C-alpha cells in the first residue's frame, strides 16, 4: 500500500498509516507498551506516563500514546532507561494507592496489579503516611474509593465521550484531586456502569457485585442481554449456580465495550422471590402447585379435546423467547393445533420495510454500519434511552469519523448535541420535516435511516421512496422493542405470515381479536402478558401460560408453566438490526423448563412429537437454517459467539402489512416490560424511582 510510514520498534521494521500512534503500532506488532490512561477510542490524556519510550534523536523519553509514527523513526521499548521509567512511575503510583488487594473487588482483574507484577519493583521504598479519603457511594450501583484511583480519567472520558452524559469530572488539584459526580455527593446519569467497567483499578466498584466473590471463583458465560432489542453481549459471572455479576469482560460482542444498566445489572430478575418454580393449576378457582406431569397431562388432554371437536385455539407468543422456541411454537400451532390464530406484540413495521425494499437485501443496516456510515438520520426515537447501543454506535461514529447526524423527533433527544441538524416536528409530521432536510441529505455520500414505531405502513414506503430519491446508498434500521422482537416476526409468529415472511394464506386472529373472540376455547400464552390492562371475552376459555412470574395473564390462567429466562437456556435471538446471536445458558433455575422443552413435552404428551421433531435448540436451529429464508447464517460465526446478519426476504411480502397493530412500549433505560418490574436494580436507582 502506498503512503505508509516506515519506522522501527525494538529493531523490527514496521509500517503504518500516517498519524498512527506509536502505542497502537506497537500493539499491532505484538509489542506491549503499558498504559493506564490511553484507551482506544477515547481522547488522549498523556497523563499516566507509563507508555514512555525511547526515540532516537529525542533527548527525553516520549509518551507513545501521543506520539505519531514518523518516517524513519526509531523507537525502543526494551531499554534499561524505559524499564527504569516504568518502575519509577509505578513506584509513584503505589505511594498513595492502598494495598488492599486482598479485599479489593478488582483483585485479579486489576491493570495496576498486572503492571506492577510485570514492570514494578519488588518492594516499596515509601515509608510516609498514605493519603486517605473515605469511600463514597454515588448511586446504588456506583461506589468510589478515591485512594485507589490513579486518575487516568478513563471514567470521565467514557461518560462524556462514549455515553454523551458527562456526569463525572475532577475536583481539587494535586494529590487531593478526585473524580467527582455531577451532583456533588451523588450521580444522576444513565447508571450504565461504564465507568466501573473501564476503571483499570478498583476505584469504581459496582454496588451489585462488590465484596460478593473473587473474580477467579466465577465462571464467565458470554450470552446476549434479554432486555432491549439491541442484542448486546453481556458476560455473566456465575458462581454456585448464581449470577453474581454482569459485565463486558472481553468486549467481543457487537457492542464492543458498551453495556447499559440493563445489560450490566438487570439480570437480577432471575432470582426474584416471586419467580415461579412449579407448575400451577387452578383447583377450585385457586392456582395450586402441581407436578410437571400433572400439568402437562391436563393441558395435553384439553388441547386434544378441543382439537378433536374442532374448537378455537388462540396462541400468543413472545418477543423475548428464542428463535427456536418461536419457530417451534408456530409449527405446533399450525401443524398440531391447525390454527393461524397466532400472534405476538409487534413494535416496529419491519414487514412494510422489507416489502418496500423488495430485493435490496443489503439495505438493512447492521450495528457496525451505524459506526461506519457517513451520515445517520434518526427519526422518531430517543435512541439514548430506548436503544442505547445504537446511540453509542452513532455517537462513536460522530467522534471518530465525524459522521453527520440528523435528528427528526418531536422532543429534544441526546443526539441533538452532536447533530448537524436537529429538527423538531409535530407528531405525525416526521416525513414532511424530513423533506425540509433534503438539501442537506442529498449531499451525503451515504445514509442510514433509523426510524421508530410512528413510521409504519404507508409512511415506511414513503420513507424508502424518499431514500431512493436521494440517489445515494441508503440503509435502514426499523426499531423494535425487545430482545427477539425481530426474531418473532422472522419466525412467523403472526396470523398472516409464516417463517420468512411467506403468506400463511388464511390469516387467523390477532391478539386483540383473540381476546375479543367470545368463542375462543383455548388461549395459550408463551412469555407474554396480553391481559395486563385487557380482559378476555371468552369467559370459559382454558388459559395456559408459560412465564417466569405470576403476571396478570398468569393469574387468570388455568395452568401456568414456570419457564426459564434467557439466561437459563440455549438458543438464538435476532436483534433490531437482524443480527442473529447465540444465547448460552449461565444458570439453572430450580423447577423451571425452557419454553422449547415445555412445548415439546406438550407435543409428546399429545402424541404429536414425531411431526414436530426434537425439541433441542441446536436441532431446531438447524431446521430454521434449512427452511427459513435468510437464516442460513454461517454456523461457525454463531457458535463462536459472533453475530451474523440475516436477510430475511428477497422480494415482495405477499400479505398486507398490519401497521395498526404496531405500537412500541417505548421502554427507557429503567423499564423493561414485565422483566423490568422484577429487577431490583432498575427500581433502586434514582432515575428508575422517578419513572412514572
Amino acid at each position, binding site marked *: 500500500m502506498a503512503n505508509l510510514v516506515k519506522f522501527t520498534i525494538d529493531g523490527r521494521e514496521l509500517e503504518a498509516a500516517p498519524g498512527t500512534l506509536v502505542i497502537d503500532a506497537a500493539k499491532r506488532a505484538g509489542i506491549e507498551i503499558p498504559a493506564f490512561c490511553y484507551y482506544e477510542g477515547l481522547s*488522549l490524556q*498523556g*497523563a*499516566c*506516563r*507509563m507508555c*514512555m519510550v525511547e526515540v532516537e534523536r529525542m533527548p*527525553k*523519553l516520549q509518551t507513545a500514546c*501521543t506520539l505519531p509514527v514518523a518516517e524513519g523513526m526509531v523507537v525502543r521499548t526494551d531499554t534499561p532507561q524505559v524499564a527504569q*521509567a516504568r518502575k*519509577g*512511575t509505578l*513506584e*509513584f*503510583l503505589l*505511594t*498513595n494507592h492502598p494495598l488492599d488487594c486482598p479485599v479489593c473487588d478488582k483483585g485479579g482483574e486489576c491493570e495496576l496489579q498486572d503492571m506492577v507484577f510485570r514492570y514494578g519493583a519488588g518492594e516499596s*521504598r*515509601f515509608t*510516609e*503516611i*498514605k*493519603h*486517605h*479519603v473515605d469511600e463514597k457511594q454515588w448511586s446504588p450501583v456506583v461506589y468510589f474509593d478515591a485512594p485507589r484511583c*490513579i*486518575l487516568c480519567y478513563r471514567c470521565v472520558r467514557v461518560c462524556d465521550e462514549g455515553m454523551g452524559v458527562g456526569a463525572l*469530572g*475532577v475536583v*481539587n*488539584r*494535586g*494529590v*487531593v*484531586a478526585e473524580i467527582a459526580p455531577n451532583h456533588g455527593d451523588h450521580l444522576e446519569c444513565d447508571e450504565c456502569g461504564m465507568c466501573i467497567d473501564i476503571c483499570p483499578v478498583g476505584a469504581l466498584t459496582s454496588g451489585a457485585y462488590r465484596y460478593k466473590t473473587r473474580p477467579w471463583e466465577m465462571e464467565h458465560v458470554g450470552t446476549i442481554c434479554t432486555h432491549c432489542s439491541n442484542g448486546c453481549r453481556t458476560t455473566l459471572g456465575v458462581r454456585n449456580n448464581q449470577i453474581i455479576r454482569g459485565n463486558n469482560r472481553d468486549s467481543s460482542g457487537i457492542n464492543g465495550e458498551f453495556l447499559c444498566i440493563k445489560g450490566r445489572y438487570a439480570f437480577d430478575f432471575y432470582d426474584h422471590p416471586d419467580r415461579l418454580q412449579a407448575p400451577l393449576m387452578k383447583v377450585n378457582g385457586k392456582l395450586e402447585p402441581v407436578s410437571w406431569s400433572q400439568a402437562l397431562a391436563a393441558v395435553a388432554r384439553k388441547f386434544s379435546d378441543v382439537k378433536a371437536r374442532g374448537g378455537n385455539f388462540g396462541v400468543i407468543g413472545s418477543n423475548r423467547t428464542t428463535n427456536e422456541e418461536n419457530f417451534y411454537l408456530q409449527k405446533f400451532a399450525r401443524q398440531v393445533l391447525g390454527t393461524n390464530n397466532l400472534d405476538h406484540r409487534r413494535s416496529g413495521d419491519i414487514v412494510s420495510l422489507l416489502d418496500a425494499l423488495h430485493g435490496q437485501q443489503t439495505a438493512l443496516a447492521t450495528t457496525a454500519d451505524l459506526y461506519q456510515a457517513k451520515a445517520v438520520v434518526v427519526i422518531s426515537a430517543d435512541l439514548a434511552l430506548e436503544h442505547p447501543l445504537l446511540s453509542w454506535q452513532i455517537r462513536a461514529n460522530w467522534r471518530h469519523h465525524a459522521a453527520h447526524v440528523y435528528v427528526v423527533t418531536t422532543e429534544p433527544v441526546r443526539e441533538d448535541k452532536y447533530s448537524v441538524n436537529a429538527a423538531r416536528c409535530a407528531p405525525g409530521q416526521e416525513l414532511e420535516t424530513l423533506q425540509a432536510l433534503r438539501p442537506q441529505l442529498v449531499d451525503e455520500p451515504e445514509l442510514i435511516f433509523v426510524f421508530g414505531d410512528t413510521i409504519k405502513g404507508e409512511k415506511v414506503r414513503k420513507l424508502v421512496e424518499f431514500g431512493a430519491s436521494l440517489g445515494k446508498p441508503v440503509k435502514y434500521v426499523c426499531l423494535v422493542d425487545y430482545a427477539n422482537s425481530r426474531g418473532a416476526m422472522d419466525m412467523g409468529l403472526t396470523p398472516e405470515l409464516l417463517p420468512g415472511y411467506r403468506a400463511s394464506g388464511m390469516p387467523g386472529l390477532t391478539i386483540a381479536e383473540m381476546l375479543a373472540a367470545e368463542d375462543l376455547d383455548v388461549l395459550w400464552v408463551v412469555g407474554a402478558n396480553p391481559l395486563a390492562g385487557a380482559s378476555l371475552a371468552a369467559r370459559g376459555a382454558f388459559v395456559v401460560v408459560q412465564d417466569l412470574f405470576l403476571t396478570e395473564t398468569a393469574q387468570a390462567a388455568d395452568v401456568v408453566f414456570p419457564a426459564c429466562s434467557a439466561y437459563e437456556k440455549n438458543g438464538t435471538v435476532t436483534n433490531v438490526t437482524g443480527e442473529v446471536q447465540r444465547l448460552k445458558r449461565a444458570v439453572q433455575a430450580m423447577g423451571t423448563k425452557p419454553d422449547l422443552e415445555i412445548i415439546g413435552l406438550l407435543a409428546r404428551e399429545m402424541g404429536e412429537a414425531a411431526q414436530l421433531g426434537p425439541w433441542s435448540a441446536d436441532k431446531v436451529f438447524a431446521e430454521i437454517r434449512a427452511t427459513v429464508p435468510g437464516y442460513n447464517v454461517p454456523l461457525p460465526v454463531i457458535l463462536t459467539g459472533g453475530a451474523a446478519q440475516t436477510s430475511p426476504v428477497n422480494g415482495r411480502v405477499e400479505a398486507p402489512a398490519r401497521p395498526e397493530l404496531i405500537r412500541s412500549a417505548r421502554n427507557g433505560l429503567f423499564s423493561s416490560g414485565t422483566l423490568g418490574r422484577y429487577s431490583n436494580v432498575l427500581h433502586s436507582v434514582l432515575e428508575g424511582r422517578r419513572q412514572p
Partner: protein
Amino acid sequence: MFASHPPLFSNPPHPREVIMLSKRFRLPNSASIDTFLAHGGYRSFRKALEMTADEIIAEVKTSNLRGRGGAGFPTGLKMGFVPRNSPKPKYIVVNADESEPGTCKDRLLMEYDPHSLLEGMLIAARAIDAKKGYIYIRGEYRYLIHILDRAIEEAYRHGYLGRNILGTGMDFDAYTHSGAGAYECGEESALLESLEGKRGVPRIKPPFPAQVGAFQCPTMLSNVETFCSIPYIVEMGGKAYADLGVEKAGGTKLTCLTGHLNKPGVYELPLGFPVDQLIHDVGGGIPGGRKLKAFIPGGSSCPVLTAKECEGLTMDYDAMAKRGTMLGSGGVVVMDESTDMVKVALRIMRFYQHESCGWCIPCREGTTWLRKMLQRFDEGLGRRHEIAMIGELAKNMLGRTFCALGDAAALPTISIVEKFYDEFERKLNAVSAPVPAPGPFPVLNDPPPLGVGR
C-alpha cells in the same frame, strides 16, 4: 479619574541600570494614559501602523528578543509561527500569571505602566492580524486587574482600542481575565484551558498555541514583559535593541533581586550582566557581610548554584545553560551562609506539591512523596540511605511529567541534594537541631494544605 499613584522609588535608578522598560516607573501617575502619552506612549504603535506585518515580525526577529516568562523562546520566531492567513480568528494572550517564587517584575509593569502592555499587544495584534486580546492575570494580582481595566477603558476612550483604531480600520479589543490561584495556569496551555473556562490542566503539545491556541484558534501567547518590550523594538529598531543585550539575547531584563541582600528590588539590567556585580553592587551586598552560599538565578524552578559556581557568571540564557541552570524569569534569590538548605529544599517542594495540578502521576505523587520526606529530614527524622533517594525520586520525575512543573520541582531538588549533601547528613538524627537564622523563605509555621495527610 486615576487615583494618584505614588512613584515606585524615591531613589534614582542604580547607575548600572539601563532604563527602558522601567522608564515611566518613577513618574507621578505613571499608570494614566496622560502620563503615558506625554512620555512617548503609543508612538511605537503609530509607527507600527505604517509598517507591514512582515516588517514588524522581522524587526522582532532581528531584536533577538527572547520570551521573558522563563523558557526564553525567541519571540519573533513565535510570532512567525502564527498562520496569519488562517480563516480562523487570531488571538493575543498575555501571560500575566506571574507565580514563580522569586519573580515580581510583571507586577510592576502592569501596576506602573499598564499602557505599555496594551501598546505591545496592539503591535503584536497588527503583526498577526488579531482582533482580540486577553490578559490572563493570576488571581492574587486582583488589584492589578482594576489598574488594567482602567487603562483599557482609557485606551478605548482615546481610540487606541475598539473599532477602527485611529481611523486605520484596525479593530482590537482587550480584556482582562482573572486566574483563580493556580501556579499551573502559568503554563501556556493550562492558561488557555483556564481562559476557556475549563480546569487548568495542560494540553498535549504539539499543536502549540501559535497554531491551535485559545478557542482552538491561532494564538500568540507571551509573557507581560515580552509584550512590553515590543514597543521599544519598534521604536529603536530591532538592531539597536539587540545590541543592548548579548549574542542571541537582545535587550534589557527586569531582574528581581530577593533574598539576603541589602537592597532587594526590581532592577532593569542588560542581558549578560555579571552576577558578582548584581549581588554586591546593584543589590548592595549581603547583610552583615556574610558570605554567599547559594544562588537561584531565575525563580525557584532553576537548579541552585553554589557560591563557587557563581564566579565569573553572567546573567544571560546561554551562560546559565553552560552552568547547568537557567536564566528563567529573572527572579534572583540570594542565600547567605546562614541558610539551611534542607529547609530551602523543603520550602521549594512544598510550593510545587501544593501547586501540582494532579494531571500526571510522577508530578502528583512525586512532589507529595518528596515533600513528606523533606519534612522528615527537616525534623531530624531522615535516614542516611534516603539522602540519595531524594535525588533519585526527583530524577524519576525529571523529564517524565506532562508539563514542566515536574521538572521545576525536580531540578532545584536534585541540585540541592547534590551540592549540599553534607547539610542533609548533618540533619540526620538531629531531632533537636538548633534553629538556624531565618532563611529567605518562611518555612516553619504554614500548615500542610487542607486535606493532605502527612
